[in-house]
């Protein structure tokens, strides 16, 4: 079974609030000094799912793709250390500041270039922007079904059976292959790389493909061609006030609180 896993490197979600800054004029997040970026936390679960499906199928290949800067190689190396077979980095200045749709098209082009692929796995969203739309865009570009937010994936005779996480329960769906499945944290803990595998992964070469390698022209990349222009980027100001509700008894305090909330149209 040949599986492609898409992974992303993101700013560390554990970055202290005081270190998180944006350049409002350039509409960019300023990398926090001294805090290295990390693999999107959902992505190792997608890699774990790929490795389990490959093992269950008794063979195949797991290829990892990441679109990002040079440092995104680390996200690919992490998946290789977990046991993935090959890695491809999509790296080109033309990819700077592109939007989700352009990212989806670039990933779809890379998936086509790789060729043989039964299944594409991704994390349910990236924990930086948390939109979760890239998998849908890739599905659209490739013309294949997308099943989102999986907690379990099983290969069947005709395709895959996926258990999805809903707000109020679970849903089981089946999809033909090839398909895209996004993996949620409910899938379970990803394996931690063994030192021996880390050393093997360090020796593996990550291929680097540019926009031209993917057949993407200037009209398909670049910030100027965003489908979804970024109007503004800022850290919202959070103001809080404290008001102590007075009253001679707990009942009176509760009554006064309720009146306040009603006056503020909160209840």
């Amino acid at each position: 079974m040949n599986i492609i896993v898409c992974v992303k490197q993101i700013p560390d979600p554990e970055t202290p609030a005081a270190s998180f800054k944006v350049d409002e004029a350039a509409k960019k997040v300023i990398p926090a000094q001294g805090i290295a970026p990390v693999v999107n936390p959902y992505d190792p679960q997608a890699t774990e799912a790929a490795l389990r499906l490959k093992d269950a199928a008794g063979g195949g290949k797991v290829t990892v793709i990441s679109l990002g800067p040079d440092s995104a190689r680390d996200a690919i190396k992490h998946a290789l250390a977990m046991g993935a077979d090959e890695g491809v980095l999509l790296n080109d200045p033309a990819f700077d500041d592109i939007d989700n749709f352009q990212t989806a098209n670039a990933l779809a082009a890379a998936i086509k270039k790789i060729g043989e692929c039964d299944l594409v796995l991704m994390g349910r969203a990236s924990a930086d922007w948390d939109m979760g739309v890239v998998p849908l865009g890739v599905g659209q570009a490739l013309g294949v079904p997308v099943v989102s937010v999986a907690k379990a994936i099983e290969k069947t005779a005709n395709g895959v059976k996926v258990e999805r996480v809903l707000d109020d329960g679970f849903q089981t769906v089946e999809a033909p292959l090839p398909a895209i499945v996004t993996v949620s944290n409910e899938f379970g803990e990803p394996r931690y790389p063994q030192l021996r595998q880390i050393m093997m992964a360090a020796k593996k070469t990550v291929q680097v493909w540019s926009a031209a390698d993917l057949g993407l022209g200037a009209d398909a990349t670049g910030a100027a061609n965003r489908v979804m222009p970024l109007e503004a980027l800022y850290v919202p100001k959070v103001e809080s006030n404290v008001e102590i509700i007075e009253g001679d008894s707990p009942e009176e305090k509760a009554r006064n609180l309720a009146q306040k909330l009603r006056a503020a149209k909160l209840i």
Partner: protein
Amino acid sequence: MDFEPTEAQQQIRTQAKALAGRFDDAYWRKCDQAHEFPWEFYEAFADAGWLGIAMPEEYGGAGLGITEASILLEEVSASGAAMNGATALHLTIFGLNPVVRHGTEELKQRILPDAAAGRLHVAFGITEPTAGLDTPSITTFARRDGDRFIVSGQKVWTSKAKESSKVLLLARTTKIEECAKRTDGMTLFLADLDPKYVTIREIEKLGRHAVDSNEVFYDDLPVDARDVVGEVGRGFYHLIDGLNPERILIAAEALGTGRVALAKAAAYAKDRVVFGRPIGQNQGIQFPLADSYAKLKAAELMIRKAAWLYDTGQPCGAEANMAKYLASEWGFEAADRSLQTHGGFGYAKEFDVERYWREVRVMRIAPVTQEMVLNFIGQHELGLPRSY
């Protein structure tokens, strides 16, 4: 000259940091307060094969060098695990060096794979209450009895003795007055910590409470002759082979602990507003932290050089000693400044910097005191007369 780490070294740093990052300050605070060995942390690193990082591949290790081991222990310490985490791992990483270098093939096959997999815990019984750093003055004695030795004596500061089933034990097999040189006549054993003959008494100490340190009393402990490490009477020389890597790794741990303390201080100084501005805007706060940053970077370079010398088979005594000296001096200074930056909160356990401060303080004493390092540098690097 090339300062760029290899791809493998970069990956080791990234992955060690990621695994250590699964155990947060709250975990270490709890282990420290409860005096509990960090089993979950230990097993995570053992299962992923990290304990054998510097052991030969034929005995289940990864066959890497002290450079890679120092990166691992620096990142473990810098995760907030500090000495509680580093000590739990490092005894296996460098302590068995004499067995790797001088043990019989049978002993290596019997011991090293289990140690590398984390199944076998080995403590180290070298220091004695009356000998201290003057190792040749030890009095623990092993007398020959057919094909075994009978050991009696007392050791102190034996870490992890309560969790260990074996101890790498240094004992005299010839009395000092009968030896041509006072460093002769000692033998290294890999002995069982058999409770029938061994009494362990934990020492209450300033910090690193998750890993016990003990007084250990040996009362006619029988040790099979096949458990002698190296040659009888040459134990001291076998032991000193491992001193330089130990110093380099301890230096890396002090560096990591200094790093986490400094990072906490910088984050707090940015966040904490007093008199209408972040306290980090005041030079009285900012300059000591900037000074510590520069010093830790310098200590790191000395660690890298010492490790590189060791891994390439070159003499590294001066660099290993200086790395330990600088990293423990400046690591502690960084922790002290972090505590000061935090003001009253620095004294509170929930901010964790007091734990780093307590733990990194020991590096100025162990495995060798700062004063003995200065003696070494004075005598061997500057050619001054021996002062002790």
